[in-house]
């Protein structure tokens, strides 16, 4: 049996669109996907590195602010490319998601598969709830991540003796 797939939703509940990662992860939790571990995180870089170093595959979901259209979904394979610097992950921690991934890369602690979903937020001020375009994006991300997990599980089964 392989190690479980780790799904991490990152965000701050009280920073409007910053909480998108948490909303996505909660929706995924309800779907009870097999062989997955679901974690809510505030984006503490050191904590992320630790979590990433112990799994075979991880999917991170976070909000970003890059000046793009609100609700835009960006997907990155962390092994193919460093995270683009123009994407600013809206963390209250400056040692945050992007930096954690790059530091884990330097320390050779990235998991074999690491996918990052970043959703362009609109409103990061104090408050609760998502803006409408970000909320619309949420459902799409939930579906995409679910597909991602199902494919990975199929792959694992196929490769198993």
């Amino acid at each position, binding site marked *: 049996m392989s190690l479980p797939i780790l799904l991490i939703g990152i965000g701050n509940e009280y920073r409007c669109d910053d909480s998108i990662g948490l909303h996505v992860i909660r929706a995924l939790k309800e779907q009870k996907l097999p062989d997955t571990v679901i974690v809510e995180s*505030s984006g503490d870089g050191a904590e992320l590195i*630790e979590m990433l170093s112990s799994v075979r595959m991880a999917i991170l979901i976070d909000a970003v602010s890059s000046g793009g259209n609100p609700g835009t979904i960006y997907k990155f394979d962390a092994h193919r490319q460093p995270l683009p610097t123009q994407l600013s992950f809206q963390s*209250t921690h400056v040692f945050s998601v992007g930096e954690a991934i790059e530091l884990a890369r330097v320390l050779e602690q990235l998991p074999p598969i690491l996918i990052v979903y970043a959703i362009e937020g609109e409103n990061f001020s104090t408050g609760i709830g998502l803006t409408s375009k970000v909320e619309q994006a949420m459902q799409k991300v939930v579906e995409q991540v679910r597909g991602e997990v199902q494919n990975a599980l199929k792959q694992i089964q196929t490769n198993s003796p």
Partner: protein
Amino acid sequence: MTNKTIKVDFLARVEGEGALYIKIKDNKVSDVKFKIIEPPRFFEAFLRGRKYTEAPDITARICGICPVAYQMSTVHAIEQAFGVSVEGQLRELRRLLYCGEWIESHVLHVYMLHAPDFLGYQDAMQMAQDYPDVVKRGLQMKKAGNAIVSLLGGREIHPINVRVGGFYKAPSKQDLGQLAEKLKWGRDAALETVLWTSQLPFPDFEQDYEFVALRHPTEYPFNEGRLVSNKGLDIAVQEYENHFVEEHIEYSNALHSVLKGRGAYFVGPLARYNLNFDRLSPLAKEAAQNAGLHSTCKNPFQSIIVRSVEVLYAFEEALRIIEGYEIPDKPAVEIHPRAGMGCACTEAPRGILYHRYKLSDEGLIQDAKIVPPTSQNQKVIEDDLRHYVEQATELPEDQLTWQCEQAIRNYDPCISCATHFLKLQIERE
């Protein structure tokens, strides 16, 4: 060029985002503005009308780095309003939880945020290429702090096990015993950290600060004590608002806190150390002295050593608490809400964190006031920048900017507490 303006639009490695503006005229600093952008009072408003039981979990969300501090100031203030005192092992568990948070927060700052400044790296990623083992040690130490918060708080970040009166669930002696090995390793790593930080190059910069911290009759302060300073302040926490005021500053949405009639004051590790050196453990004192520190340190750049000394103390204190721990009969004392006002100060990693609550007889919050450490240090940060830049106006722009950012990071400003995003800018024209 005799006139220039330094403006740094984005300060990396500070919690949140902030802005710094410095104007230099005839080689004299004519203006310094350390700006905080966003209005900060959401949480105080958000707490109004909520039940006292919700307050620890709500305030924990103000900051991802120091949720325990927010919870501790919250529960102590509400307990004061309700006339409750939490003693014995429950009090010890609160100190233990605070040890975990100091370790997490200080280690992050020392290794990931501040050390790169001294060693000439843009960030921890660059530093890790040349010092992978040092960075790994830092991550491992932080993990030990996380383990405490996780075990006691219910999870690593935003602990959920804290309540007014104590905890929802108290750990068994066996639970805590599992931490011992990690913490012993952490204590040794902290000793190495003190030595390592003491060998960094420090600018020669000292100021005549007024340091303010809690002071307890027997302990290095976490949760309790009188508010004292090196310039004669010695008051009960309940008198806080008679002595400290928050002033609105035109260029910043955060409020500047000042000592009435005296102005800027300095809170945080350096203040605690200077006012409580005699309360440190023998090992922490010895390590500080071996690192070249005296019982007073007035160079804010050396705060990185003092943080490391506090990390060492926190590991030792955690081990002491675990060794003497017996599970309490109940995880919390009984609470009977009553109408009233309560306030408390506890020592967040960055300095004193003041909370005041007005509660109804049903335990509903009618009014809340929160003064985070960063808003208290804001004025002294500006003063440091003014004095520091004044002696270095001839430096090339990139170096001066670098040093200004480093000077701000001496305070480990947590702008997400003071407001949210702090954009630090230095601009020259």
